[in-house]
């Protein structure tokens, strides 16, 4: 009898541990070979056949197609320096320089990867359309309400995700240091 209860307990606990761990890793997007530069993280190996099983499972679940290695690399930012998710009711300034690439695009999504509805129908910027100062630097103002310059509306949503995609770039699996790939800084500018 004790054996029976013992094995039942073990099997239920095993299922809970196993499925719980799978759920946690897949919803949080765990993957190996992360390249983190400041607030930004990319998984260059996810765009090749060297993709690890966790990343494979994650993209199968979400239904997205990763950027291929010969095409470019995608950097994700989900939280600020303090680890807090980006709040769409707050303002942020993004400025600095970007790694070498023929083109880059910058896009704001909700946590599920959908674009966010807004009055000016703007979801991001490309390297060609962004307004720069005389030194070639730029500042993007992410805010729920209109701002001068490069304004990217948040639509006031609770939480948003930023994706910086570099196309035709030397940044990839071999990149190790921040010096090779300087990414723009994300500075909180207060909440309304």
């Amino acid at each position, binding site marked *: 009898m004790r054996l029976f209860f013992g094995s039942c307990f073990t099997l239920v606990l095993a299922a809970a*541990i196993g499925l719980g761990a799978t759920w946690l890793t897949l919803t949080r997007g765990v993957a190996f070979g992360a390249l983190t530069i400041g607030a930004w993280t990319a998984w260059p190996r996810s765009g090749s056949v060297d993709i690890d099983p966790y990343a494979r499972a994650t993209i199968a679940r979400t239904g997205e197609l990763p950027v*291929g290695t010969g095409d470019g690399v995608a950097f994700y930012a989900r939280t600020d320096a303090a680890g807090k998710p980006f709040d769409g009711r707050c303002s942020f300034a993004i400025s600095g320089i970007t790694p070498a690439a023929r083109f880059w695009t910058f896009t704001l999504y909700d946590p599920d990867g959908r674009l966010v509805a807004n009055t000016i129908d703007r979801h991001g910027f*490309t390297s060609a359309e962004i307004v720069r100062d005389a030194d070639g630097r730029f500042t993007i103002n992410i805010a729920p309400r209109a701002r001068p310059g490069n304004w990217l509306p948040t639509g006031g949503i609770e939480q948003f995700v930023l994706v910086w995609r570099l196309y035709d770039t030397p940044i990839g699996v071999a990149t190790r240091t921040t010096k090779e790939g300087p990414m723009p800084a994300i500075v909180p500018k207060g909440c309304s």
Partner: protein
Amino acid sequence: MILRAFLWVLGALVLGGIVHLSTVLAMPQAAKQDAYARLAPVAPVNTMTTLAPPSAQASVMPFMDPAFAVAVCRYDISSGPLKLNAPVSQAYTSVTFYTRNSVAYYAINDRAAGRRAIELDLMTAEQHAQMPEEEVVTAADRLIIESPTTTGLIVLRALAAEPGLMAMARRALAAAQCRIEPQQKP
């Protein structure tokens, strides 16, 4: 008593680890809403289809780049090799090959292709090995890609550097073609 309970918990941990690893490994096969499944209703087999641009209301796949026009060829090369012909748009064009389970196994951009159009032959390793020798020589200037699976996705992306250029990028993609080569009689 405590030792016995400890052993049961230890057993649960080991079993749980096995459950975790096997569910992660089985996920790509079990997923019902992966990219291929999402594209199946909108993209016919072995035909190039330009996708509707992503918007806040609807998007075929999550995390699509709104600055790009996208065309998809959902291929099935079990009956023979596939020919891909894609004119290059003005700003930036890339072609990425995915397996049935969304693994990007090959990607090339317009500059790496080095021509005004990207021309590729897609075949399985078996079909590649069966190619007659003379054909291999004449095919030297054609780019041959080996697909690890008989089904998969070819995704063409053309950048619209400004929203005003989107119509042009979509036109460039509309001229792209993918089709099965007619089988030659032996």
